[in-house]
Each structure stands twice: as structure tokens, then as C-alpha cells.
């Protein structure tokens, strides 16, 4: 892949515009260095509209760092990130949800003191009355909008079979429930692309299957997914496209069938298998 014109990375040429129609997210030559460690080195890949793309690699490959670079949690040293054709490299973290890009966290990060329902309601964008003047001047409208929002949030939660826990405090929920609430919170922003950081970790056999069927349904409804996941078997089954990273570099990408035969990937994974979990 060619780098964007030097000196003015925000210029989007015709080829980019064409690519933007098929790919919702384009990462170009992304690099970041933490002190002496080159955590991510010149990584480029694209996420297709309406598809599941997986980012895999052994521990320390830089997968979560790529997520943090995309969402602005960590500033990139080099590289460009295009989301729906827009250069979002320097957009602050709070600018993503409104643009249609949401993420979940490996460590879930619910608002622990709030109910599950309130957690989901936080995900809504452009909420009526979310300011300091509404309690003074637009109280009735604010309350009406709130009840409507709570109803919508409950509807969303029922799709994820979370209706029964809506009014429980997030910290009291079971681990799988917390993971689902976190996804529901991200979905409340109506994302076009959802970044999932290890959606299957910590789930048991049946819960994994259920999560996979939820994710497939989600993609069918038009939301593209980019996931970081260690469960290689599941990744091979549900992904349309796989990007493999190792020690901060992209070593392969392609459909699952090609990745499973890829010599370098096999070497990295078989080598990694001895010292990490299978």
C-alpha cells in the first residue's frame, strides 16, 4: 500500500475515496514508540463495511495498542487513520462515538456505581437536556426525553437479554452480564463500526457460542466489527478478514482459510503456544 502524500496526510485522493466506499476504516503506516519499545511499527490495514475483521497475534503483539491508537487514547507517532473517508488521526477520544465509532474495553470499564440501564443511557449521543441549564429552563421536556431514552435503552437491553438486570447496579452483575452491558452501552451510540477488545475472554462454552451468534446478528444489522481476540478457533469461524500482528508488526492478512495455512503465522503461533495458553 502506498503512503499518503507526504506533508499533507489529510488530503484524500480519488483512490482513497473509492476505498472509503468499501472500507469503513483505513489505518495507514501507524507507528508508536513507548520509550525504547517500538510497540507498533508501520501497521496498515482496512476494515470492510458490514464485515467482521479480527486482529490477532500472541501476547504483546500490539493489538490493544492499535485499538488505543485508533480511538485516540494513545497519540500515534506516525500514520493516518481514516474513518468513513475522514482523517480522524487527531480527533480527541470523545469525538468518536458521535462519528459512529464505538469501542469496548478488555477490562469492561462499566460505570460501576450506576445501574445497567444508566450505563446504556450514557451511550446515547446528542441527548436532550444534557447541559447545566435544562434543570432550570427545560425541566419538563428533559424529563419527557429521559423517559423516552430509558424506554429505548430498555428495548436495546432486551435484544441482548439484559432486561432483567436493567435496574441492578453494574458492579453487582456477573462477568458475562457486565460484558453484554458494555456492548449494549457501545451500541447505544448507534455505531457504524464497533471495536471489541476480547469479547470472548472469560466466557464459558455456551456463553461463547451465544456471544458469537450475537456478534453475527450485529454484523447482519449493518455494523462493521473489528475485534481483538485470543480464541483463535472462534476467530477463524466468524471473521471475514484477519490481520495478524507479531511484536508490533503486521505479518499477514487475509481470509481465515489463507491465514490458517500461512507459514509465518503458523510459526509464530506454534512458537508462542509453548509459553502461553493454547
Amino acid at each position, binding site marked *: 500500500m502506498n503512503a499518503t502524500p507526504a506533508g499533507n496526510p489529510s488530503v484524500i485522493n480519488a483512490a482513497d475515496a473509492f476505498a472509503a466506499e468499501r472500507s469503513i476504516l483505513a489505518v495507514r503506516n501507524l507507528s508508536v514508540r513507548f520509550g525504547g519499545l517500538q510497540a507498533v511499527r508501520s501497521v496498515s490495514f482496512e476494515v470492510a463495511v458490514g464485515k467482521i475483521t479480527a486482529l490477532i497475534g500472541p501476547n504483546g503483539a500490539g493489538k490493544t495498542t492499535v485499538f488505543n491508537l485508533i*480511538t485516540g*487514547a494513545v497519540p500515534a507517532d506516525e500514520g493516518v487513520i481514516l474513518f468513513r473517508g475522514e482523517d480522524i488521526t487527531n480527533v*480527541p*477520544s*470523545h469525538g*468518536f*462515538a*458521535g462519528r459512529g465509532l*464505538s469501542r469496548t*474495553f478488555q477490562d469492561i*470499564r*462499566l*460505570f*460501576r*456505581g*450506576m*445501574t445497567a*440501564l*444508566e*450505563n446504556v*443511557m*450514557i*451511550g446515547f449521543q446528542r*441527548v*436532550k*437536556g*444534557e*447541559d*447545566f441549564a*435544562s*434543570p432550570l429552563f427545560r425541566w419538563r421536556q*428533559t424529563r419527557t*426525553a*429521559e*423517559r423516552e*431514552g*430509558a*424506554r429505548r435503552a*430498555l428495548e436495546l437491553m432486551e435484544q441482548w*437479554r*439484559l*432486561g*432483567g*438486570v*436493567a*435496574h441492578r*447496579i453494574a458492579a453487582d452483575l*456477573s*462477568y*458475562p*452480564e457486565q460484558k*453484554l452491558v458494555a456492548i449494549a*452501552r*457501545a451500541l447505544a*451510540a448507534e455505531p457504524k463500526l464497533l471495536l471489541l477488545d476480547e469479547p470472548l475472554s472469560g*466466557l*464459558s462454552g*455456551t*456463553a461463547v457460542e451465544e*456471544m458469537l451468534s450475537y456478534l453475527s446478528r450485529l454484523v447482519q444489522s449493518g455494523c462493521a466489527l473489528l475485534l481483538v481476540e485470543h480464541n483463535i478457533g472462534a476467530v477463524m469461524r466468524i471473521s471475514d478478514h484477519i490481520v495478524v500482528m507479531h511484536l508490533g508488526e503486521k505479518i499477514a492478512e487475509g481470509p481465515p482459510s489463507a491465514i490458517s495455512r500461512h507459514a509465518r503465522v503458523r510459526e509464530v503461533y506454534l512458537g508462542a503456544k509453548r509459553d502461553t495458553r493454547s
Partner: protein
Amino acid sequence: MDYVILVITVLAIYGIGAVALNLAFGLGGIFVVTQAAFLGVGAYAAALLAKAAPAWGFWPGLLIAAAVAALLAWVIGIATLRIRGDAFIVASLALQIVLVDVFVNLKDVTGGPYGLSKLPEVLPNRVLYLLLTVAILAGVSLYAHRLTRSPMGRTLRAIRDDDSAAEMSGKDTVNTRVAVYMVTCALAAVAGGLMGILTKYIYPGSFGVDLSILMIAMIIVGGLGNVWGALLGALLLGGLPEALRFLPIPNDNVLTVQRILYGSALMLVPFWRPRGLFPDSYGRNARVLGTARERPVPSDGPGSDERALR
């Protein structure tokens, strides 16, 4: 009788300060140690205006006090509220001390360590003054109560619970924190302005860090994030010294006993009720959002088999 009215008025002023502090501290999770200094900013602003233009009455003084405090809070906020956690507590404490130093050293304006005295009488009697203060307390409490239940209240609690998750949910956490800090400081300045008009004498010693800590104690004892908690905390801790007058304690020891009781309350209440006397329970009450169910239905979601195994 005059004395009782005076005590109730002072308690109402504490109430305004505590309810205001509860917005930034209880809801927003910002450890604000500058509350007393901003009471002082308001007191000086209102007093100086009352001296310059006694004919204007008290409203312009209170409004200008709030505006000056909000502006100062904005400048301080954009500089310090990017810092999170413990570092902000240190910055906030430093600001409290610096502001009191300014009151002491800006002699031409503030009258230095002796403060401003012989402030003009803006209300004819104490009863009217009490009514004004209680009315403002009621208004501030109603506003705070609504804010707690509004989308902004929810956003503030989200920022308090997890900053980066709130940021990824599209919340501009830095600017929201600056804004709630401005509201808290502006309302603190109104309380300070009222205090200045009441006592007709203000000096830097009234706005020291001990008052900031007293107000923090009020909302921790009362319940963070709950307006009723802040009011009860102000009543209990503010009223404690007055209640002690009725006990047969020699005058010399009153202050000591007061401190022992006040320290015990601070230790015992969190032990007995960790979330304060009136915890922030908004959201657990399904009725307020109109989404109550007949009966809680156990989840049959993916978590159910895990729970069955526990």
C-alpha cells in the same frame, strides 16, 4: 430570638455551600478543597459592591459574586482539571491557600488581614434576611436535585466512575468537569456573599482550609451525590457547636469537645453507613424513569449458567 434566627441563617448558608460542593465533589468526583476560598471570593465581591453602591441592594452583589467566581473557576479549571486523581487534590489545596493569601495581601482591595468592616445594611431586619437565605437555599437545592436526575447528572456520575469509558462514550470529560466546577464555585460565592451581608464584617480567617474541610465532611457524612444528604450534613455538622451549648461543658473545653464529636462523626458514619446517611440511590429506583417492572425478572441471559454454578 435574634440569636436563633442568626444560627438558622448561618446553617442555611452552610447548606448552600454543601449542596453546591456536592455537585462537583459528590456527582462529578472532583475532590474540591477550594470551597471556602470561593465563599471568600463571593463575600469580598459582594461586600466591595455593597460598599461602592449601597443603594443597589443585595441582588447585584450576589450576581456579581457568582459571575466573578465562575470566571475564576473557569481559569483555574482549564489549567488544573486536566490533572486527574491525587495530583488535583494537591493543586486544589494549593489554590485554597493561595486565594486566602491573596485576601491577606491585596490590602488595598480586601483590607488585608483585618478584612472589611462596617459594611452597609442592605436589609432592614434579620427575619427578612433569614427568609432571603432560606429562599436561595431552596432554589439551589431544587436546582441541584434536578441536575442530579438530569442527563448531565448521569454524565457527571459516569465521569466520576470511569473517565476514559465516559470519554469513549462521547463525553467531553475535561470541559464537563470545568463546567461543574464553575457551577459549584458560583453557588459557593452566592453563599459567601450572603455571609458577608449578614455579618457586615469579613476577614480572611473565615475562609480558611478548615471551612473547606468542614464542608467536605458535611457531604461525606450526609451522602455524596444526594441533595438531602448535603442538607442533613450541613445541619448536623454546622449545628453541632450550637447543640453543645446546651450541654454542661465548661466554656474552655467547648472547642475540644466539639472537635472530638466532629472527628468521631467523620469516622463513625462512613463505618456505619459507607455511602453516607442519605446515599445516592438515583437510578436504583426504577419508578423515576418510568421503566419499573411488576416484579424483577431473573435474567436468562448468557450469565445465568455462571450464576447457577456459584
